[in-house]
């Protein structure tokens, strides 16, 4: 049999180590008391406890969604630890006070929390299990009035901003996982860009799940005031466990008049081993609200990890002339499953959206694009262009495309293109016949396939993403 393309080897996951650190862990399970406990551990204002309890009560009445093209054994929500924080001094005054073990951990992950080592012009919020352990360049950013801190801190120090915007884009009862997150989220990042300000550096949050039994429920809120702009990056890794960990995040973006938010993700959670044992369940709600006229929100994601990805970064285009963009590369290998895509909801006049989705499936993995383009009755002149390309590597991987289009305005224009290509024996033989190895051939074909998306990433991350994909596919043929 012609098995050259189908034999699969899992590339060792180099971020799979566990940090040995003493943690403050609450007992397993979820109840109203646990919600109260989390809130009190974080010294939150009263409105936050109410927010959480409201979410928790709604969650109790909801059912886990089952429409996605993913399959997994039932999650026992009473067997998850909802709060796990490395033990260190409650309030840190400077980076020097961060536990060296944690600094080392992030160093090992290639994330320098030392401001002296200014390799790149990027400020970092580092999140370890349930809490933010450090945020760099805060003072420098503060000079421009930019707030970049953990969401826990924001709840205490900028309660009016948090109260105004938290849950304004993703309501507490939006969906099962968003409700769960709203009830138990422990940390995340908060970004506020004041009027007319162009954020002077890239902001980024790095998520690390360390505890094998805890879930990670982070919450990110980014508000860009009129005429401001920001580019934000998110990276994630986790140790290798042979059990699954739940990651249910919520990200909310708000762009006011003429504001622009660019949100990029390079997701490299542990994907499980080659037989599908272990790995992260990544059930995430990400939504951006283009509230102001001429505002723009752009999602770029490179999804390579997780055992299961369930994620639809969306844009709600309320402001006239506002723009939503979604650029995505989702790679699945071995037994990974991804059901990902976007929603573009056109409400204002002359709103425009672009969807470029590139799905790559290797091994026995399943990769589905699911997207909704909705044009409301008042969205005169709205435009959408969608392009969904699938690439299959070998003979056992699957790809699906589920585009949903709802148009309620006859002046709108919606275009959808889709293609499926394959990296199989013949393509690899063609390269080999010209002296090019399978690894190089795949990496050239994949880079070419993903070019339109990688071009949207900030420079260093484009290179990183390219390398990451090659690494993930190494050994997927031959």
């Amino acid at each position: 049999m012609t098995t050259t393309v189908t034999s699969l080897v899992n590339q060792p996951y180099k971020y799979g180590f566990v940090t040995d650190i003493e943690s403050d862990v609450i007992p397993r399970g979820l109840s109203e008391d646990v919600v109260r406990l989390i809130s009190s551990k974080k010294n939150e204002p009263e409105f936050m406890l109410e927010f959480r309890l409201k979410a928790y009560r709604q969650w109790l009445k909801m059912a886990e969604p089952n429409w996605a093209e993913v399959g997994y054994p039932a999650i026992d929500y009473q067997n998850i630890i909802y709060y796990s924080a490395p033990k260190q001094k409650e309030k840190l005054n400077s980076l020097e006070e961060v536990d060296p073990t944690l600094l080392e951990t992030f160093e090992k992950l290639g994330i320098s929390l030392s401001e002296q080592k200014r390799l790149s012009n990027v400020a970092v919020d580092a999140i370890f299990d349930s809490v933010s352990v450090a945020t760099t360049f805060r003072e420098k950013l503060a000079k421009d009035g930019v707030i970049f801190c953990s969401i826990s801190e924001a709840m205490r120090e900028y309660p009016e901003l948090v109260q105004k915007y938290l849950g304004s884009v993703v309501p507490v009862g939006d969906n099962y996982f968003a409700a769960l997150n709203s009830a138990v989220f422990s940390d995340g990042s908060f970004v506020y860009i004041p009027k007319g300000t162009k954020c002077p550096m890239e902001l980024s949050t790095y998520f690390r799940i360390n505890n094998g039994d805890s879930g990670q429920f982070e919450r990110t809120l980014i508000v860009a005031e009129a005429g401001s702009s920001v580019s934000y990056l998110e990276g994630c890794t986790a140790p290798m466990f042979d059990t699954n960990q739940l990651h249910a995040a919520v990200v909310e973006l708000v762009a006011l008049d003429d504001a622009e938010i660019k949100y990029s993700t390079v997701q490299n959670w542990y994907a499980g081993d080659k037989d599908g044992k272990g790995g992260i369940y990544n059930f995430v709600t990400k939504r951006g609200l283009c509230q102001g006229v001429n505002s723009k929100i752009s999602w770029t994601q490179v999804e390579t990890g997780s055992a299961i990805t369930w994620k639809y970064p969306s844009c709600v285009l309320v402001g006239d002339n506002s723009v939503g963009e979604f650029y995505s590369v989702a790679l699945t290998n071995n037994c990974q499953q991804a059901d990902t895509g976007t929603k573009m909801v056109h409400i204002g006049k002359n709103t425009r959206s672009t969807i470029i989705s590139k799905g790559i499936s290797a091994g026995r993995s399943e990769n589905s694009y699911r997207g909704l383009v909705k044009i409301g009755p008042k969205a005169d002149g709205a435009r959408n262009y969608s392009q969904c390309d699938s690439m299959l590597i070998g003979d056992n991987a699957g790809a699906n495309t589920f585009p949903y289009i709802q148009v309620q305005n006859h002046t709108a224009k919606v275009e959808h293109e889709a293609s499926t290509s394959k990296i199989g024996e013949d393509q690899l033989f063609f390269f080999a016949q010209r002296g090019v190895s399978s690894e190089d051939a795949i990496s050239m074909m994949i880079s070419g396939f993903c070019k339109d998306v990688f071009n949207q990433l900030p420079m260093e991350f484009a290179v990183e993403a390219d390398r990451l994909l090659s690494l993930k596919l190494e050994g997927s043929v031959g």
Partner: protein
Amino acid sequence: MIIDHSNVILSVKNLTANVDETPILKGMNLEVKAGEIHAIMGPNGSGKSTFSKVLAGHPAYQVTGGEVIFQGQDLLALEPEERARSGIFLAFQYPLEIPGVSNLDFLRVAYNSKRKHQGLEEVDAFDFDELIREKLGIVKMDASFLSRSVNEGFSGGEKKRNEILQMALLEPKLAILDETDSGLDIDALRIVAGGVNQLSNPENAIVVITHYQRLLEYIVPDYIHVTANGRIIRTGGKELALELEERGYDWVLEAAATGVAS
């Protein structure tokens, strides 16, 4: 232990090969010496392309017997890319399209993997640009084809020309051209044949697979082989092509079946 005393580049003895469980090649024999041009003709489905792909190491075919010595080396022991780097080139009957990969990048990576194999330094984009422009001249191709994706949207003839461009760049020891003439217009045929002749020298060898005597007017072979049912059933000089053109294959097949030369 094989010692290379001769100027034999390729020696194929009793080569048999299957696809899945079906035998396709049923005992191929061929010897090619430096400086020679061979033509392989034969009815559709007689195994010409299979033979070329087996030599190049296509994974869909399993060699079940026989031996292939290439420049004193056991060719069948090498991976496809090693065969290519050591000088085997196959111009495909149906060149593939590779979307997203620019022709220029593809050519440069191919060229550099050969350089690396030879222990030479890789050439940078700048020097390569100069080199490739010179090679474009051999097949009279426009530089605009370099920035397009490999073969994507190329016409049939353009794809074939692109194959010969790759040959010109890689300067193989043994080039196997599988129906490079089919789909070419009259002028293109002349240009491509001219390019091949320009690349032919006393050190290398060329095997052309074709259905048409016409090509052989431009690329004049030293030998013509006729394949049928996975074997070479007859070998002759260049005049054999004219005879085949006139009389078709039946008489050769019959003669082979009865074991009588006519």
